[in-house]
């Protein structure tokens, strides 16, 4: 029963095939047995999960169950969960028990899900391999020597290894889509502002967005139906009506115009990955879509601009961690400056400190115009490129990642090599657009992800496209033997 997705579980619970308590018990046992190989979870919520499962079964017995009542789910450890440790993958918050629930968590609780636990992640969401976590690296269920991708590596590994049917995650530069590609999952990053960031620990506020890691597009749609919506507590959440994201899943794709960006098929893309992507594009042509080459001429600037903007915003967001009100505090501070400096230097890991310093530098007097303002102008160039492309095509497709999952420890020499992992995904965050990565092939038994980028608030269309692809291919059903 732990090989089922959310939609299947929902139907099975409704049909009385098993109870939520049985399912939850099975997942908890499996996690305790298998997770030592993957390190996908930071915190297992055994007691709470069983109590939620029993409550769900009672509700069902009274005929009051909703679609997701009793369905197990895991949350990335970046979402505040009331009364439960929320670490953000960092020593800085190792002792932090969140005093409130994030809006995303609250919405899922209202929907009746069972929270299995909090998943591992790169520290403060800064990373593309889940190697920077204070709690140790996460291992890819397809091959334990490889990374699962990051920063939502724990959520991805948990779903891929059947340690939960689905998980929440976040994406600032590719942190949902790239792990989805490396782990053979469907990873959705909605339009910026579609999902509330209240209670979601901030990394880069103009880029962060909550999303989903699931086994199918249908499951992603079910989750988005719960997550999406305006939140007065998040002034960056958009006040546009939500829709039923499952409504258009079965629309035929005839007449869909797909843009293929020249720059995403250039130097650096692994030849086997490219072949898989081109095969996937051919499937879309069979479904009635047409392909058209488009240009995103400022693509090559996206990583540079991102590595000014994101660290700059992070340096501001992480200034709240000062050892005073919550979180890590150093022993025996001599004075206030010592309190700040040692709490922060001992509480944060190397990559986090590196990015805080890059951001501080970019915002400092004398460099602000050359770096921060320049990067914001490039951000406009990148958005303009997408706007122009979307006058010619409906969606843009290409590889999510230039290659398949790499070996743990193989990219820690030069941070820039790691930064280039997100070369196809980053521009989407800068422009605020929605993007989805879906399994589109295997190279040497490792998953390949196809990225689909849509116009603002086109999540229904992206999910429709993904679902139709998943009706005629079975890449998304491939799973490692775990």
């Amino acid at each position, binding site marked *: 029963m732990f090989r089922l997705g959310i939609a299947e579980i929902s139907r099975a619970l409704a049909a009385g095939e098993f109870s939520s308590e049985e399912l939850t018990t099975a997942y908890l046992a499996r996690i305790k047995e298998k997770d030592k190989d993957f390190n996908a979870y930071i915190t297992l919520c055994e007691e709470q999960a069983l109590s939620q499962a029993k409550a769900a079964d009672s509700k069902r017995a009274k005929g009051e169950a909703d679609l997701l009542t009793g369905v197990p789910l895991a949350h990335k450890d970046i979402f505040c969960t009331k009364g439960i440790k929320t670490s953000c993958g960092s020593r800085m918050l190792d002792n932090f028990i969140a005093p409130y629930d994030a809006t995303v968590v609250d919405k899922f609780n209202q929907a009746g899900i069972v929270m299995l636990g909090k998943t591992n992640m790169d520290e403060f969401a800064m990373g593309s391999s889940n190697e920077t976590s204070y709690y140790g690296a996460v291992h890819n269920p397809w091959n334990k020597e490889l990374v699962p991708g990051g920063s939502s590596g724990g959520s991805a590994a948990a779903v891929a290894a059947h340690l939960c049917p689905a998980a929440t995650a976040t994406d600032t530069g590719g942190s949902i889509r790239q792990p989805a590609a490396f782990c053979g999952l469907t990873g959705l990053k909605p339009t910026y502002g579609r999902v509330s960031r209240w209670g979601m620990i901030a990394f880069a506020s103009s880029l962060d967005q909550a999303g989903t890691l699931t086994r199918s597009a249908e499951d992603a749609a079910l989750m988005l139906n719960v997550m999406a919506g305006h939140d007065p507590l998040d002034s960056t959440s958009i006040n546009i009506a939500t829709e039923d994201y499952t409504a258009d899943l079965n629309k035929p794709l005839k007449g869909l115009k797909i843009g293929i960006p020249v720059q995403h098929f250039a130097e650096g893309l692994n030849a086997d990955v490219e072949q898989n992507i081109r095969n996937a594009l051919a499937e879309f042509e069979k479904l009635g879509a047409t392909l058209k080459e488009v240009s995103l001429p400022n693509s090559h600037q996206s*990583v540079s601009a991102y590595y000014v903007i994101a660290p700059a915003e992070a340096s501001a967001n992480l200034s709240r961690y000062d050892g005073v*009100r919550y979180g890590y505090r150093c022993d025996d501070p001599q004075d206030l400056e010592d309190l700040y400096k040692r709490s*922060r230097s001992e509480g944060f890991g190397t990559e986090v400190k590196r990015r805080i*310093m890059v951001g501080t530098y970019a915002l400092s007097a004398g460099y602000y115009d050359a770096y921060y303002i320049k990067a914001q102008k490039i951000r406009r160039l990148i958005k303009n490129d997408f706007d122009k492309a979307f006058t010619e095509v409906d969606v843009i497709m290409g590889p999510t990642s230039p290659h398949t999952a790499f070996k743990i420890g193989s990219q820690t020499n030069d941070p820039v090599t790691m930064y280039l992992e997100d070369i196809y995904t980053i521009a989407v965050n800068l*422009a605020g657009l929605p993007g989805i990565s879906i399994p589109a092939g295997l190279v040497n038994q490792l998953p390949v992800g196809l990225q689909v980028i849509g116009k603002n608030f086109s999540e229904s269309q992206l999910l429709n496209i993904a679902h139709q692809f998943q009706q005629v291919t079975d890449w998304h059903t491939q799973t490692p033997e775990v």
Partner: protein
Amino acid sequence: MSISANDIAYIANLARLQLSEAEQQEAADNFKNILALIDQMQSADTDQLEPLSHAIETSQPLREDLVTELNQRDELQKIAPKCEQGLYLVPKVIE
């Protein structure tokens, strides 16, 4: 563009971080590569452009000036490292 260990020490101080000499040197080396990456931006022609700080261009929504927050001080201070009588304690600042 290169950056010295002294520059790193200055930046670290601004960010209230403390690095050992070895860490400062390593940071300076890494910075060199990161600066090379971000210096690529200089080749873009952005003269006539307005900076884009936020993908969805809207303005800050406003609300009625009414009290909506509850006083949760005791609850929120349960997780404080050091506090007394509702105040957070830090090393003495004023002589």
